[in-house]
C-alpha cells in the first residue's frame, strides 16, 4: 500500500474542554478546535489519494470510532457545490457522530464524571490497524506467496489529549505502547491543554514519534500541519520538533501515584510507593530485614514534588520520616521536579517552576 494510514485519537472530555476554553492566555474551545482538526484531516486526505484515515473519540467512559475510510457509510451527504465531496464526507460524518454521542452523554449524567477512555480508543485504533494489515495481507497473498507478512507502510496514531495522566491505566497504556512497537506503529502525541503527561511522553519516545506540549493553543493547526502531517518516513529530512526531556517515571500499583523512586517486588516487578510487607500482586512475602533497611533508606530520600502535589491523599508516612524530611528542607526544594535540574541549563528552570505551579494549582482545584 502506497498511502500512509493515520489514526487520530481525540480526547473529548467535556469538563477539560470547558477549562480549556476559559484558560488564559490562548483559550481554545471545542468549536475552533474542530475547525482546525478537520482542516488537518482534509489535508491528510488531500496529500495523497491512497491515504487512509480513522478517527476515534475518547468520551468519558467510552470510546467510539467516529470515522474510518475503510467502511464508508452508505448515505452520501447532500451535494454542495462549494465543497470537495471527500472532505465533506469526512467533516459531516465526524461531526454527526460526535453530536450523537455527546447527546447520549448528556442523557446519562453518571457518565460525566468518568475520565475519558483514552486507553480504549488507543487499543481500538491498534486493533483497527491490525485489521488493515490483515486485510492487506489477504488481498496481496496471491501475489506475494511465501514471502514474509507485509506490514502497512508507516501506520501512525496521533493522540490529541486534553486530560492529565490517568494513573489507574498505567499498565494498559504501557501494554498498548509495546504492541504499537510490535506493529511498527508510530505514536504521536499532542497535549493541547492540561499538565504534561508522562505516559504520552513515553509512548512517543518508545515508538519514535514526537510529543508536543502545546503552548500557543490558538496555533493548533500550525502545529498539526508542521509536525504531524508528514509521515514518519520523511520526518528524518524535515526537522520535526522533538521532546526535550522524557520522564521515565512509573505509576505505583498501590496508590496509583507517579513515583520517581519506587520499591519493586523482585518476583513480579510490581512498583510500590512505600515499602510493603507483602506484594499485593503476587502475594510474595518480603523478609522483614529488607523492609527495615528500605524504610531507613527511604527516610533519607527527599520527598518528590510529584507525590506531594499530584496526590493530596498520600498515605501517611512514618513519624521519623517526617522528622528527617523536615530536617532537609533545602534538599527537597532543590529537587522540585525534573525541570529544575542542574544539567538542563539555566533557562529551563524558570519555566519548569511555572509549570510545576500550574500542576499544583490544577491538582488542588480538581
Amino acid at each position, binding site marked *: 500500500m502506497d498511502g500512509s494510514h493515520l489514526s487520530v485519537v481525540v480526547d473529548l472530555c467535556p469538563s477539560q474542554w470547558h477549562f480549556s476554553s476559559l484558560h488564559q492566555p490562548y483559550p481554545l474551545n471545542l468549536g475552533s478546535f474542530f475547525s482546525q482538526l478537520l482542516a488537518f484531516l482534509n489535508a491528510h486526505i488531500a496529500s495523497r489519494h491512497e491515504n487512509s484515515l480513522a478517527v476515534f473519540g475518547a468520551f468519558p467512559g467510552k470510546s467510539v*470510532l467516529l470515522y*474510518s475510510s475503510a*467502511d464508508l457509510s452508505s448515505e452520501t451527504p447532500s451535494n454542495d457545490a462549494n465543497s470537495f465531496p471527500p472532505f465533506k464526507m469526512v467533516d459531516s460524518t465526524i461531526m454527526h457522530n460526535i453530536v450523537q454521542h455527546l447527546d447520549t452523554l448528556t442523557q446519562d449524567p453518571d457518565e460525566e464524571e468518568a475520565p475519558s477512555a483514552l486507553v*480504549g480508543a488507543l*487499543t*481500538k485504533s*491498534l*486493533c*483497527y490497524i*491490525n*485489521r488493515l494489515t*490483515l486485510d492487506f495481507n489477504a488481498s496481496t497473498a496471491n501475489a506475494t506467496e511465501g514471502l514474509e507478512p507485509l506490514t502497512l507502510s508507516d501506520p501512525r496514531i496521533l493522540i490529541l489529549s486534553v486530560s492529565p495522566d490517568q494513573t489507574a*491505566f*498505567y*499498565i*494498559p497504556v*504501557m*501494554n498498548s*505502547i*509495546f*504492541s504499537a512497537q510490535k*506493529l511498527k506503529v508510530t505514536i504521536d502525541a499532542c497535549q493541547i491543554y492540561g499538565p504534561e503527561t508522562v505516559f504520552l511522553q*513515553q509512548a512517543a*519516545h518508545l515508538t519514535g514519534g514526537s510529543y508536543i506540549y502545546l503552548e500557543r493553543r490558538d496555533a493548533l493547526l500550525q502545529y498539526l500541519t508542521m509536525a504531524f502531517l508528514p509521515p514518519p518516513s520523511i520526518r528524518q529530512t524535515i526537522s520535526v520538533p522533538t521532546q*526535550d*526531556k*522524557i*520522564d*521515565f*517515571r*512509573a505509576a505505583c500499583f498501590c496508590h496509583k501515584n507517579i*513515583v*520517581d*523512586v*519506587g*520499591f*519493586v*517486588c*523482585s*518476583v*513480579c*516487578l510490581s*512498583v*510500590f510507593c512505600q*515499602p510493603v510487607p507483602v*506484594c499485593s500482586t*503476587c502475594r*510474595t*512475602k*518480603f523478609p522483614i530485614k*529488607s*523492609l527495615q533497611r*528500605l524504610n531507613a533508606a527511604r527516610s533519607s530520600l*527527599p520527598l*518528590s514534588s510529584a507525590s506531594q502535589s499530584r496526590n493530596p491523599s498520600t498515605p501517611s508516612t512514618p513519624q521519623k520520616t517526617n522528622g528527617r524530611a523536615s530536617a532537609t528542607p533545602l534538599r527537597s526544594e532543590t529537587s522540585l521536579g*525534573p525541570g529544575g*535540574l542542574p*544539567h*538542563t*541549563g539555566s533557562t529551563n528552570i524558570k519555566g519548569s517552576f511555572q509549570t510545576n505551579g500550574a500542576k499544583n494549582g490544577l491538582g488542588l482545584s480538581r
Partner: protein
Amino acid sequence: MNAVSDSDISISDYEETEAGVSRSKAKGKGKATDKRKKDKAKRKPKDQAYTWEANFTRSWETVQEDEGGSLQGVMNDWMTRGRRKRLLEPQNAIRRTIIRHMVLLIDLSSSMMDRDMRPTRFAVTLQYAREFVLEWFDQNPLGQMAVVGMRAGVGERICDMSGNPQDVLKSISDRHKLEPTGEPSLQNSIEMARNSMNHLPTHSSREILIIFGSLTTCDPGNIHDTLDECVKHRVRISIVALAAEMKICRDLCDKTGGQFGVAMNEGHFKDLLFDLVPPPAQRALARSSGAGAGSGSSTNPAADLMMMGFPTRLPDTSPPSLCACHSELKSKGFLCPRCLSKICDVPTDCDICGLMIVSSPHLARSYHHLFPVKPYAPVASFDNIATSASCHACSRPFPTTPSQNVADGMSAIGRYRCPDCNTDFCSDCDVFVHDVIHCCPGCGK
C-alpha cells in the same frame, strides 16, 4: 490404529509443544521429546519413550478439505487449538522469575559440523542463537546473559555476563572465532557457568541453557557431583539436544527443574529454543528447591523488595556536562532521581548513591504476565445479542449467517465476548488482544 488422537499429537508437536504436553499428560501417553519434571512422576512404565516407537500415523488424512476445496476448516481448527491452549493455561501463574541470569552454553565440538541440519548444525545453531538472544532480551529486559562454548574438552568463555544484547550478539557473530573442534565437556563448562553465577543475588534466577550436538562428553571427574552442586545452588539447566537423548542430559534437566528436548528438525529446534524465552513460572522453581532444600511453599526466601529509581532522560540538545560513570562530556544521558548525577545508560546502579536505576518501560514490559486478559467466551447463537453489528475493537461487521462445521471452542457467528464488559469481538481481534495488546479494548483492563 488410533488414527485421530495420535495424529493429533504428531501434528501439534511442532507447533505447540506446550499443548502437546498437557494433552498427552491427560491421556497418560507422554512422549520423550518434551517432558518436564512434573510429568515424570506420572509416567508409567508402559509409556512410549521415543518418537520412533510411536505408531505411524497418517497425519495428512486428518486434513479435510471442505466442499469448496479450501483448507479454511483446517485453519479454523488451528485457531481453536490456540484458543483452547490459552484456556488451559492456569490463570494464576503470575509468579515468574523476571530478573533472570542465563548462561548460554553452545556445543562447539566437531559433532556440530554434521550436516543433518542445513548447511551445518553449527551454522543453524549460531543463527538461532542470535534470534534467541534478541527475543530473550526483548522479553527479559532486566535479564543478563553470558555465553560459554564447549570446545576441545574445556569450557571457553565467549561473552561475560552482560545486560546488553549487542554485546552478546557481537560475541557470537564471528563464526571464525567459534570454529568447532574436539570433544565437548559438559562438566567443565557447567562448572564454569555455575561459578560465574555464584555471586548473584538470591532473588534472580540462575539458568544454564545448553545447545548440545554431541553424543559424548569428556569429563575430568564425576558429573553427578556437578549435578548435585547445581541442585544445591538452584541452577536450572535446560538442554536442547540436536542428536539424541542422553541419560545424563535428561537427569541434569529433571533434577534442576529445567526443560529437555531433542530437536527433530530446524523448525522444532527453534521452537524448543524459543520455549525458553518467557520467564519461568515461580512455582516450578519453588518445587525444585523444595525437593532440594525442603523450604515451605508459602514463604519464598528468594523474594526481596528492591528500591529502584526511574530516571529522566536528557535530550541530545541539552547543554553538555560530565557523566558520573565515564567522566565524559556528553549531552544526552539519564539523571538519577535521588542524587541527580548523570548516567550514560540504564539499567545500572548509580555510581554516586548506589540506587538501582531502571527505565520504567523495562519493568512494564513484563506486566502482561501479571494481568492477563480474561479469555473471551465464544457466543454460540444469535439469541442473546443486544449489542452492535460490528466488532467492538476494529468495527469489522460480524457475519450475519452462522457458518457450518464449527469446531469446539469456536463461535458459529464469529463473535467472542469479554466476560467483564460484555462486548463482542471478532476472532482476529480476539487473537490480537490476547497475544499482542494484553488489554481489553472494551473495559480497558
